[in-house]
């Protein structure tokens, strides 16, 4: 059953990644100005060089042919060359991915720690003022655009991952708080308290197992939020990661780079969500 679930997820991932790549390639191909090439106006190039450059790009005009060639190359580890940066896409992705992984990873960790600490302490402490503080804080951060948080982190000399943490924090806090409040209201928690169990034991043995599936599902979603936020944060904070690369590719209409970044981001998002789903399935109690 679990194996079938994993296979189904993998098939869906392959299908969606292929479709996503084709969709982004089609969008770029249909964009106005696709045929324009700044090298055509470069006085240092002669007519023959311009013609050679134009011929090199001719294969990209037919979108299906371009995409088929891309897939063939990808299978052999060749992801093409970026027009705007003049470097192989594979090396660009290898160079940039660790930065995003580090920034988004630390940001996610901090966001989860902050949100979980506030949500758990709020449920244990049960003070209206404390609850109001948590709700207002998360509400305020929900209302600030990711790009503004990036700008504020530049002004305050704060690291980029802090901005990512503050972007994911309100979403995690609100969801976790509601889940924990519902779990603490369950009859078996009241029974555990009546039997004299300590709050720590109740939390780890009786509350967390109840909320774990939903929290794991949320963890998958927050990966997608953090990757999305990495675009303004890396662009505005000057961090050379995938987000900044996506931004540069979008502005320069760099087809090979844009398609690959799209595929990579979609792949990571889907893997995170599918991984979360498989884990939830594994944690679900088996029926007798």
């Amino acid at each position, binding site marked *: 059953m679990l194996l079938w679930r994993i296979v189904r997820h993998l098939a*869906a991932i392959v299908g*969606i990644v292929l*479709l*996503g790549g084709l*969709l*982004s390639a089609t*969008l*770029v191909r*249909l*964009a*106005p*100005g696709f045929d324009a090439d700044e090298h055509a106006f470069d006085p240092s190039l002669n007519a023959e060089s311009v013609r050679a450059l134009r011929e090199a790009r001719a294969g990209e005009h037919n979108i299906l042919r371009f995409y088929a060639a891309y897939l063939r190359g990808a299978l052999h580890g060749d992801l093409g060359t970026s027009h705007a940066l003049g470097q192989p896409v594979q090396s660009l992705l290898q160079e940039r991915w660790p930065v995003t992984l580090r920034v988004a990873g630390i940001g996610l960790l901090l966001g989860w720690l902050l949100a979980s600490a506030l949500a758990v302490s709020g449920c244990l402490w049960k003070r209206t003022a404390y609850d109001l503080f948590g709700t207002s804080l998360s*509400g*305020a951060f*929900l*209302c*600030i*655009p*990711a*790009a*503004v948080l990036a*700008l*504020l982190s530049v*002004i305050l000399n704060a690291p980029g991952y802090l901005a990512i943490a503050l972007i994911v924090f309100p979403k995690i806090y609100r969801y976790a708080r509601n889940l924990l409040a519902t779990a603490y209201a369950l009859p078996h928690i009241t029974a555990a308290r009546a039997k004299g169990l300590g709050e720590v034991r109740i939390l780890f043995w009786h509350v967390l197992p109840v909320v774990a599936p939903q929290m794991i599902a949320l963890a998958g979603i927050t990966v*997608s*939020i953090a*990757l*999305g*936020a990495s*675009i*303004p944060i890396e*662009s*505005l904070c000057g961090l050379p990661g995938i987000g900044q690369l*996506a*931004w540069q590719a*979008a*502005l320069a*209409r760099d087809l090979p780079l*844009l398609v690959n970044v*799209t595929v990579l*981001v*979609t792949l990571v*998002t*889907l893997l995170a*969500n599918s991984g979360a789903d498989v884990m939830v399935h594994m944690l679900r109690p088996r029926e007798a």
Partner: protein
Amino acid sequence: MNAARKVACVVLLAVCVVSLAADWLAPAGFAKQFREVPGSPPSHQHLLGTDEIGRDRFARVLYGTRISLLLAPAAALVSTFLAALVGGLAGYLGGIWLRLATSFTDLFLSLPWLFLLITVRALLPLNVSPLLSVMITFFILGLLGWAASARVLSTSADSLRNSDFVLQARASGLDGPRLFFVHVLPNLKPVLYAQFWISIPVFILSEANLGILGLGVAEPLPSWGSLLRELEGLVSFREEPWRMVPLVLLIVVLTSFQLALSNEELTA
């Protein structure tokens, strides 16, 4: 209606009225340059000072608020319409249509929203007239923002399809578009309204992100995104605190939206 909700509605109404009165409150307009006082601090003539090229910041905030608050609901209307079309119809038809729509929606939702947004915005011409740039920005928001709402609507329409009154209507010989438009769609109205209201703050935030990244509304037209872009040159908060006014206003408006929407609407 609780007190916080009432206050939020009053704040939203006040901001809308003041922004609509921009022509009277700031007759100089958002584009006029006072070249003798560029980058000046607040004064009687310019309540929030002037920007780097001498434009009155107060006027730009008022006009920017008007643009963002008028066009975000328009984008929400587009996205809700598309969501009703894709999600509502798929849920009503069920079977293969529902599975196809769900897969298509999943494809859309699996791409990070901001990533998709900057890609599509960058694909369209950037050097267009300011008015066209406003239309393009908000139309893209509406066009790409339907997926989450469609998911909710397809689930609601799917449950309605199997409800007793629809089964009875079918048994009475009603089918096709008449059943959908007369019996199913009116019952989807509460979900549609909720999705519409929820989408507005999302689009306001997205426009702000696009504006700061330089892919939003083109100059000289102001919007909250382009106004927030001014923060890029800020060195410290103490230096020119009045430049934070658009951000404070944005937070106040979005908080008011959150408070004005009931819990049922937020979770619909």
